[in-house]
């Protein structure tokens, strides 16, 4: 998923048609000075210290400036190895969890055998049940931490988008997309915040409850609530799908409508400048276009830096979740031959629920990525049509 986002990001932004091939337009530095990036920068500075440990620190203004000057020295190999190191570190850190799970599973298996030897005595069964509950509590504890991390990352992304989108909309106004910005401002901010809040407060808890009910279903063969768990999971996934569709649909339609309106205004102004200023009208409109190009260049750079920040914000918690999924799957695989099938299945269900959480968080990241792409793309579209 992250790889796909990075590739799309590179494909969408790297050509920067307005200015990449041409020399840097005049006035970029002055326009950068005018742009207030303190909100975004403050938020990035406030972000988890964990980010700095795993990846090189992100100075937003500096990144934007480097992108504008085409002096970006990203080393994909280094980033990739950082990610690998992080996954490895997380897996190693979770080895204690794996150890606890395996040891308890072995105890469970021994107790089960003892119960069988003593003609299924209630005491043996009870002890087995208690050990099973301890094992599940440990597994659920780390599961809860992963869900909390997922909620935090969604929250962080929403706050970041609330800081980034006004910046992008300001630049959209500066390139002449006044109508687009006026339409986008309430819609984008409200949908981003609403989708983020609903995923954080409804979808993620529903997945968590579904996982808990799944585990409870494994306590006894006679009292099953797995259908209710399935219902909750289905509702959560349906909501996620619905949010994605509505979010993308609204953004795409509103964006195109605004861009066409702006294009009409800009073309009229350009025609007036070219036609009604004798002899040198073309010169004037060229000078204006050079200035707009510099704003466009900054806007694209801010967009790329924003997407990069979202990716960084998203990557670490997702890697953490993936490493937990791996631990659960590994524990399930190790436990299955020694313990009973119930335990292995239970851990497998937990890992599947974690994968669903991964998908939910990645979907939110993808939606926010599309939101930034659409706002940046609308600016390019407006300028391209003039």
């Amino acid at each position: 998923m992250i790889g796909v986002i990075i590739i799309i990001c590179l494909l969408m932004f790297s050509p920067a048609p307005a200015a990449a091939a041409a020399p840097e337009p005049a006035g970029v530095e002055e326009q950068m000075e005018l742009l207030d990036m303190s909100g975004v920068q403050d938020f990035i500075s406030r972000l988890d210290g964990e980010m700095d440990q795993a990846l090189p620190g992100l100075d937003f203004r500096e990144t934007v400036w480097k992108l504008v000057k085409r002096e970006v020295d990203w080393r994909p190999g280094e980033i990739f190895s950082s990610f690998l190191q992080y996954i490895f570190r997380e897996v190693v850190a979770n080895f204690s969890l794996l150890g606890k799970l395996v040891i308890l599973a072995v105890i469970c298996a021994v107790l089960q055998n003892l119960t069988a030897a003593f003609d299924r005595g209630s005491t043996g069964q009870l002890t087995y049940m208690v050990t099973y509950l301890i094992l599940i509590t440990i597994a659920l504890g780390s599961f809860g931490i992963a869900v909390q991390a997922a909620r935090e990352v969604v929250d962080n992304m929403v706050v970041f988008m609330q800081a980034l989108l006004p910046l992008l909309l300001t630049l959209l106004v500066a390139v002449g997309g006044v109508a687009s910005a006026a339409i986008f401002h309430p819609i984008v901010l409200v949908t981003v915040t609403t989708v983020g809040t609903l995923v954080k407060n409804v979808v993620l808890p529903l997945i968590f409850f579904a996982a808990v009910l799944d585990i409870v279903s494994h306590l006894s063969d006679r009292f099953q609530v797995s259908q209710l768990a399935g219902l909750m999971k289905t509702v959560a996934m349906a909501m996620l799908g619905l949010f994605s569709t509505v979010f993308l649909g609204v953004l795409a339609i509103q964006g195109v409508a605004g861009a066409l309106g702006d294009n009409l205004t800009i073309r009229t102004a350009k025609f007036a400048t070219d036609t009604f200023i004798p002899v040198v009208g073309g010169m004037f409109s060229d000078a204006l276009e050079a200035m707009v190009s510099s704003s466009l260049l900054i806007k694209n750079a801010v967009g790329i830096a924003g997407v990069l920040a979202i990716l960084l914000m998203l990557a670490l918690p997702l890697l953490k979740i993936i490493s937990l999924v791996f631990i659960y799957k590994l524990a399930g695989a190790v436990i299955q031959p020694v313990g009973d099938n119930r335990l292995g299945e239970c851990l497998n269900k937990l890992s599947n629920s974690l994968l669903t959480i991964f998908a939910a968080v990645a979907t939110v990241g993808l939606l926010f990525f599309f939101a930034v792409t659409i706002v940046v793309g609308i600016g390019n579209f407006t300028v391209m049509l003039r």
Partner: protein
Amino acid sequence: METIRVLVQTLIIIVMLAVFLEMLLPQGNMRRYVRMVMGLLVIMSVLQVATGLIREGYMADVPRFLTEEAMAGGGPPLSEVMSRGTAMDEDGRARALENYRLGIQSQVLSMARLYPGITVQEALVEVEDEPDSPYLGHIKRISLVVSAGPAGEGAVSQVRPAVVEPVQVKVGSTPPVDSDGPGGGPGPEIKSTAARMARNLAEFYSLEPEKIEINYK
């Protein structure tokens, strides 16, 4: 969400209670009854939540999912975004206008220096810079500073070594002999060349002749 959380909690308690009761109770009919009662409890708790939601109206919980911040959308108001963007746009326009003015100024200077017999030392172009004016970008005035000198731009641009002629000190009131007219003003030849230049510039830029101002130095 709170309702669902309570439901899940209740279900966990009921199922665990059922499991432990099943283990603790002696074999026999009692177990079956307990199992059935526990099953009924599960159904009741689920139905209770469902009826509770219907009674409250299933949309009643929706606003609770959304905080005040979510409903407001967060971020600065549109007017602030617009004013910042407009300020950037205006700054860009002002800089574009200045670049455009400087471009015309250098164009005028280059054209004016093509005329032999005069030296155009300076050209100043004023353009309409009122953003709301329908004449934004139109040339308002061109001021040229002209002095007598060698012909054209080529003469100006070529750097020649200064030749200082021997200085002769004459005592008496002999009038100076140069291209200036009587009283130290420009000579008629310079004036006519400058007027021709002004006329041509006015025609080139579609300006009224009085918008070209020539100052002699």
